[in-house]
């Protein structure tokens, strides 16, 4: 810390790092966060107790009917469980597959490492819709795989790969893998490499050094990646819509249909709050053990 220079005089009664000035600086962001993030969630929470009359119409008479419906109807439970399962499977596969490229980029002697990293960031810039629908060209009846297999005579009927749960999970992995790789990479970068040399000099093989030093020290990044992938997968709804059949709809699709299709706003609000609470608890559980800092690093890196 540098000592505060004494010769900077307060201007018009404002100290150099006056908290009032700080509040002025953050005011626009704070206002936006209050009006567009906190207030909507609070209003949504209140809406879950409103009475649904008919499509698009509701009354502010308070009722527990929406919550009762959610708690008792197994239709909703099924959706929730399936969504959590798809989210967990997606996150786990991303973790396993994503570790390899992260480790490769970190340890390669290749001089143009930045290019490998840039290639991971490029997909973030490509429209999510375009990225998702482009899988139709690979998996669809006229997709690369089916056309190639038909030409080779290995099959005589196109395989049904699109519009399945597998296709949805693959689309989600395609979307989330860069998040995972970058998260793991950031935590690998923070490892003091002399620790590994030390392990090697004490007689560890490379594989042992990896197991005993590198892997444990990179776990925070892996955990942050898993959380991020899980939350984003469980909250998705464009991917199932494009790559799945009706049966592969997730909780996000349910919310969208309830609000935009049935115009049942109170129930839609209830379902959104449920998803918010469930994913929020997972995130809270995570931050209790890991803290926020790793996620911040992963998002900023």
């Amino acid at each position, binding site marked *: 810390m540098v000592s505060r220079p004494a010769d900077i005089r307060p201007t018009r009664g404002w100290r150099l790092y006056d908290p009032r000035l700080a509040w002025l600086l953050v005011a626009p962001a704070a206002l936006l966060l209050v009006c567009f993030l906190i207030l909507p969630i609070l209003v949504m929470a209140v809406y879950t107790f409103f009475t649904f009359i008919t499509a698009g119409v509701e009354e502010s008479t308070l009722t527990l009917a929406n919550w009762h419906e959610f708690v008792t109807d197994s239709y909703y439970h099924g959706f929730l469980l399936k969504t959590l399962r798809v989210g967990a499977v997606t996150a786990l596969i991303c973790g396993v597959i994503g570790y390899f490229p992260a480790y490769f980029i970190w340890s390669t002697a290749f001089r143009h490492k930045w290019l490998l990293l840039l290639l991971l960031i490029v997909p973030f810039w490509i429209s999510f819709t375009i990225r998702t629908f482009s899988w139709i060209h690979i998996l669809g009846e*006229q997709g690369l795989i089916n056309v190639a297999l038909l030409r080779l005579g290995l099959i005589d009927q196109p395989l049904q790969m699109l519009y399945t749960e597998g296709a949805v999970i693959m689309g989600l992995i395609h979307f989330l893998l860069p998040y995972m790789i970058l998260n793991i990479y950031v935590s690998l970068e923070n490892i003091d490499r002399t620790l590994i040399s030390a392990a090697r000099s004490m007689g560890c093989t490379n594989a042992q050094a990896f197991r005993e030093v590198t892997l444990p020290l990179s776990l925070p990044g892996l955990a942050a990646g898993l959380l991020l992938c899980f939350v984003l997968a469980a909250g998705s709804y464009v991917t199932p819509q494009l790559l799945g059949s009706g049966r592969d709809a997730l909780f996000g699709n349910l919310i969208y249909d309830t609000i935009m299709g049935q115009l049942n706003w109170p129930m839609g609000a209830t379902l959104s709050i449920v998803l918010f609470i469930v994913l929020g608890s997972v995130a809270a559980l995570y931050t209790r053990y890991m803290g926020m800092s790793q996620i911040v690093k992963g998002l900023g890196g």
Partner: protein
Amino acid sequence: MSAPVDSESKWAWRLTRLVTLCVYIFMFAPIIATIVLSFNASMFGGFPMTGFSLRWYGKLLENEQVVAAFKTSLWIAVVTAIVTTFIGVLTSLALVRFDFRGKEMLGTLVILPALVPETILGVGLLILIKAIDQPRTLPILVLGHILLALPYVVLIAQARMVGVRRIYEEAAMSMGASRLDAFREITLPLLIPAVAAGALLAFTISFDNTSASLFWRPAGGETMPTQSLSMLKTSISPEVNALGTVMIVMTVGIPLMGGLLAQGLARLKRSKPREDAK
């Protein structure tokens, strides 16, 4: 990294290389397929290729809905980029340089929009608008996009701001520069890479946003992603492939060019702030 010696390490390193290669193929194969197919002469949007043609791009230009959606998205993205960068830099300045009550909370709050699923953000704002009886309008959509881009801009600006030592500004001010002058002459030029990166990211986040925009778009107003989504619902036409390719060129080409430009500028006037004490 030293060359692997034992057989287990060698085998593991080979596996790592192979999986890495597969991951990169997996990431880009579908995108490349879309770009290639956009030049397909066939009436259908899939393989096999029957010939090279630019007609789908021509059709795209004649499609008034697409052109309108493109203009809307471009406009929204530019406004989002400018406003988000402005308030994002102010926020990170306060978070890095100042101590004030609620700083920790604000720091957490500001990254939440990146962590809360867009479906929830989308529904929440929609219900709020309905509760206060307001119509969905373009400005609300823009403000929503600013909310979604803010975490990224703040994180980028914050990371850079930590590296700019505050004694530079303090030195300027002790020599009589006003606060604003010190910021404009000292801090801002050192922040430029972060400002540019943040603005570009905000632009692409807005230009690409699908999930939340589906909830927030004004009645009858389409953005590029919602327009392409509704085109996809009817059929996979070659026109959609052309649309996809145009969007890829837009959102990859612009940041890439911006990045190269920034690097060139940085090389011209090398100013490397120390990464130590604030």
